[in-house]
């Protein structure tokens, strides 16, 4: 188990180093920098002012030097200053993390708590009307883009209740605070729940045909015991994998959801920072997200080992 852990940890560090290189150089490949954008917004280009500004921001330096300044700062916890707001990058990023974390957490919770039970029911009731209905729901979830679903929810809320469930920084009640996150989390989590449900269903169907399930039934185990104790425990591995991957994909979904529900989280902030080519914000934020995603995958790898002892013995 220890060797497995060390190997995964090493792989994680190598991955993060690779990501840092990709982030840094991809950003520089994108045409234009903050200075171009500032002058584009002003509708003119003054070469002298442009050169001064590039020097002031340090983007006239060789790329290797720029990379070294950034990555060494990142490791020290010095994230530099936002080119746009001229405030410390960390000060800009930190308050937004809990907002997105809450949203992502709720979306994942929604996904797992809806997707897994419905997937089990769908598999157990295979071929029934209920199964067909649940499959239609899951297919809809996969087909509906979350921005469209989000706008539909907003439009319906305004038309039916005269209220709009967009982000409220100062909710008056606990319920209002919950609604601020729950509605967008449901919008973004619906697709994820649909995927989880389909994976759970197919995985369960495969497991339910296994000999040991028949043996369990022959021994007189109850349906619940067979389905949830024997079958689900063995069918859950691919589901965990998908949820781990979904956690990473969720960031992409959140960009749109945060925009539609006007939530000041990191995902929308990241898009804005890319638009402005605000390198200190983009690099550090993407790197932080990468750390979270790689760590999540690391945890998933560890969970594999917990759920399936064969992995820790053979890998």
């Amino acid at each position, binding site marked *: 188990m220890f060797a497995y852990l060390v190997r995964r940890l090493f792989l994680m560090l190598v991955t993060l180093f690779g990501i840092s290189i990709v982030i840094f150089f991809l950003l520089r490949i994108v*045409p*234009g*920098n903050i200075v*171009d*954008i*500032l*002058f*584009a*917004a*002003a*509708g*003119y*280009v*003054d070469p002298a*002012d442009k050169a*001064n*500004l590039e020097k*002031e921001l340090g983007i006239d330096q060789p790329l290797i030097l720029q990379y070294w300044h950034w990555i060494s700062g990142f490791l020290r916890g010095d994230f530099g200053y*936002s080119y*746009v*707001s*001229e*405030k410390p990058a960390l000060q*800009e990023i930190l308050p937004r993390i809990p907002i997105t974390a809450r949203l992502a957490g709720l979306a994942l919770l929604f996904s797992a708590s809806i997707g897994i039970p419905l997937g089990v029911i769908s598999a157990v009731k295979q071929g029934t009307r209920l199964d067909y209905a649940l499959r239609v729901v899951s297919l809809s979830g996969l087909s509906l883009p979350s921005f469209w679903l989000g*706008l539909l929810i*907003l*439009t319906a*809320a*305004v038309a039916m209740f*005269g*209220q*709009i469930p*967009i982000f409220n*920084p100062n909710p008056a009640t606990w319920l209002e605070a919950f609604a601020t996150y729950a509605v967008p989390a449901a919008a973004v989590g619906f697709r994820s729940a649909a995927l989880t449900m389909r994976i759970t269903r197919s995985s369960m169907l495969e497991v339910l045909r296994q000999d040991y399930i028949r043996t369990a039934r022959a021994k007189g185990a109850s349906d619940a015991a067979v389905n949830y104790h024997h079958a689900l425990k063995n069918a859950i591995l691919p589901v965990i994998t998908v949820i781990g991957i979904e956690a990473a994909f969720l960031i992409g979904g959140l960009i749109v959801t945060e*925009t*539609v*529900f*006007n939530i*000041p989280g990191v995902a*929308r*902030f990241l898009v*804005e920072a890319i638009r*402005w*080519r605000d390198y200190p914000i983009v690099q550090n934020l993407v790197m932080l997200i990468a750390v979270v995603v790689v760590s999540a995958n690391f945890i998933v790898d560890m969970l594999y080992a917990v759920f399936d002892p064969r992995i820790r013995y053979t890998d």
Partner: protein
Amino acid sequence: MRSVWALAATAALSLLAFSTTTFAGEPKQGGILRMYHRDSPGNASILEGATYSLNVPFMGVFNNLVIYDQHIAQNSPDTLRPELAESWSWSSDNKKLTFKLRQGVKWHDGKAFTSADVKCTFDLLMGKSQQKLRQNPRKAWYNEVDDVAPNGDFEISFNLKRPQPSLLAMLASGYTPIYPCHVSPADMRTHPIGTGPYKFVEFKANESIKLTRNPDYWKKGLPYLDGIEYTIIPNRSTAILAFVAGKFDMTFPTHITIPLLKDIKSQAPNATCVVEPTNVSTNIIVNSTSAPFDNIDIRRAMSLALDRKAFVDILFEGQADIGGTMLPPPQGIWGMPKDKLETIPGYGPNVNANREEAKKLMQKAGYGPDKHLAVKISTRNLAEYRDPAVILIDQLKSIYIDGELDVVETANWFPKVARKDYMLGLNLTGNSVDDPDQSFYENYSCGSERNYTNYCNKEIEKLFDVQSQEIDTNKRKQLVWDIDKKLQEDVARPIIFHARAGTCWQPYVKGITIMSNSSYNGFRYEDVWLDK
């Protein structure tokens, strides 16, 4: 007896009705005006910006020397009002403009306002001070100002190289606030200090901008509002739905397109909505330095092929204006009258005849039904650029020009235009003041940074100076019309249309006036109030 009671009741009701009417018109103190903002401005320094995304939230933090009357929609020389200046006077040779400054005005940090602050502001703008603006997009406005000289603490003179009556128009723009000497340009970008009706509280990028009432404002009793809060919502659908749901008191000014305005009126029938010109023209930039558009015949043919009314009908349901460089009347002060405009080739009502003439010019240049001219039409990747570009491509087909849309990301647009790396471009030009000096020198004078096409006609340049020095407004108008006509005939930068846009507010918001010939000058909001 019954009639006495009835009379008394009637009298009481009349009195009540009268008093209600009286109080309904009285401004009420208090309340926060909640508005959504379309975009997160880069910073808070108006002097460094070139977008009204900055002017709208931050104009209320400052004062100018003079300002356009905030309750007259049309900005004109007659609507100039004193602000930090109590009065102004021109010298007999019109080369010296002297302002008497208001005394007892305090900056938001408590320091006293003096003529030194005015000098600092204009030295910054003219690039004469030690401290530098990170960007200075309107430096050219002050090309004719020799120096700005204080005469004591409360008087200041602008010494000009030659008469320039337009200087006052530029000083009245929302783009010309007075900055404090004791705050650096860098600090003004993050925490602006002004003398205006509202104090800056905070600016959270992509989130919100908050202003609070300045209790020491030099106009006693103003502002009426306790503050203004802007929530940044870049998604237009969300923003409009939030306005309809009553989450906001007002939409972002001139942010509503004509088709969307109908949606708002149907969902929020009580909202007050107005549509006004934005003084932003949609135009074609032509690279006349290389083939094929170095050929004046092809440029003229292209201009003749334009069906401007079709653009206006498709994009604005008929609610936009056709004109030359200057915004057309009645909202525009300097635009050509319709009869003069229609004498310009391509502006006549008979589009088919214009296109027949255009085809002849194309054939003269060697193109025809069997040999089309392939052209890339570059434009910025924004809907207000892309949509007219698509219509332009369709219209040019009628004269043997096959256009291909070349969509360019915003960051690369101006560098590309500056490199002359385009054949035809569809561009938008905003005018912050409805004034010929601002428009002509900025967009058409030889060597100007914003003269993207490098159009340079020394004869016209001389006329720019003649109109600029003309004191008599009527004489100046004639000169401006002649110049504008010549610019269109030269196909310097063919103007397609002047856009209009809508603004809506809830019925209880009072004291809002949307300017009809500029989108940059009407956001002081010192006497806006909420009737609730």
